[in-house]
């Protein structure tokens, strides 16, 4: 079967790749573009380890076909830090030890960033509901919630200074 040609914008850069029609966007990102930050946990949209932004919307990349990305804008965990400077969420995750094995972390960071972009001051309940689709089997979530709260406070501070 012939491959499908796909061109899209990933983390601000135009990219082109070839994939089989039945390749998930997650596999295309990982295998064709070498962006291995997004992980496959369940492959059925339950765990959130493959979270990415597709045209500004948080989605599970395992539930998107690679060819669907044609002409779309994709943002992944690889675009989160600015060069060597970590995003406040990334820093706070380290600060709070909000990860152990790290498998769920890219998805949690992408999902948390999407939350803070639309709600700069979420309550604990709002954070927990927003992140209900990101499963972590190590931390028990409390440290993650605290990291997101502190990153939110930091980002609000930055905004009020700017």
């Amino acid at each position: 079967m012939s491959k499908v040609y796909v061109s899209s914008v990933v983390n601000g850069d135009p990219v082109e790749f070839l994939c089989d029609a039945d390749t998930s966007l997650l596999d295309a990102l990982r295998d064709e573009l070498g962006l291995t930050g997004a992980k496959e946990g369940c492959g059925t949209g339950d765990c959130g380890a493959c979270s990415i932004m597709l045209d500004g919307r948080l989605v599970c990349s395992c539930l998107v076909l690679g060819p669907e990305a044609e002409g779309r804008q994709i943002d992944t965990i690889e675009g989160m830090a600015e060069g060597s400077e970590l995003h406040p969420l990334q820093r706070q995750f380290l600060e709070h030890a909000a990860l152990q094995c790290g498998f769920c972390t890219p998805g949690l960071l992408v999902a948390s960033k999407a939350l803070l972009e639309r709600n700069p001051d979420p309550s604990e309940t709002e954070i927990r509901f927003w992140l209900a689709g990101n499963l972590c089997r190590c931390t028990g979530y409390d440290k993650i919630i605290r990291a997101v709260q502190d990153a939110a406070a930091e980002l609000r501070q930055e905004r009020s200074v700017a």
Partner: protein
Amino acid sequence: MTGFQYSAPVSVEEAVALLAVDGKARLLAGGTDLMVQMRSGRVAPSQVVDIKRIPGAIGIRQENGGFVIGAGTSCAALGEHAALCAAWPGVVEGANLIGSTQVQGRATMAGNLCNASPAADSVPALVAAGARCLVVGPQGQREIAVQDIPVTPGRNSLAPGEFVLELRLPARPAGASDAYLRAIPRTEMDIAVVGAGVNLVVAPDGTIIEAHVALGAVAPTVLLVKDAGAALVGSKLDDAALQRMEQAVSAACKPISDKRGTAEYRKSIAAVLARRTAKIAYQRAGERS
């Protein structure tokens, strides 16, 4: 997930032709059901036809006082539409209960409907709302009621080549509102044990002029319980009317026992849930009179 052709047609005619090629073509909207079904091997399509690039397939527009929702519109987009949330809060809250934030970003009400699960969270409120579907296909287009789509669990009434292009919600008079509640053993990310959608039109003096009650997960398809709606009409949602509605609800339920709940449990919880949902819809209607 092996060996299908992917296409993303930009016209209805093209999509219909692709879907009609053989009986094994499948339509892709949000993909939150289809991708999982393909991966598990439950379906092995020859063609996957992505309808999201057809003009009008994504988006919400107001028309003749009502709303037209493109079949590819994500549930997340419904929750962000202020006018839709104000007019049909029950429809939106049903749709917004499906899956996680990530699933919300892709899942569609039309997909939830056509997937034909009896527990589909967006369907009871759509049925109670009297929503209709614009179905397109090889024979042209037709409009049918939402409740005419599901036939049995997992099977819908659409003919080969046909698909739902739009969902249409009718115009809303003053003093009208709706609500949806579901029972699940957790707080989030679960499938309804029972779901109840109630849509009311209430006169300025508080008398219910019109009432529609629909139930999910208590029969092979979502049920529109006409007697339950009729029990509320003419009342001010007093206890006697609510009791009549509960009796009608229990009488209409034909649930199965499964891992989510026994038939007896479903029957009894359906009545409670319908009562609570009616109260929310009534209160909301009062706020809009």
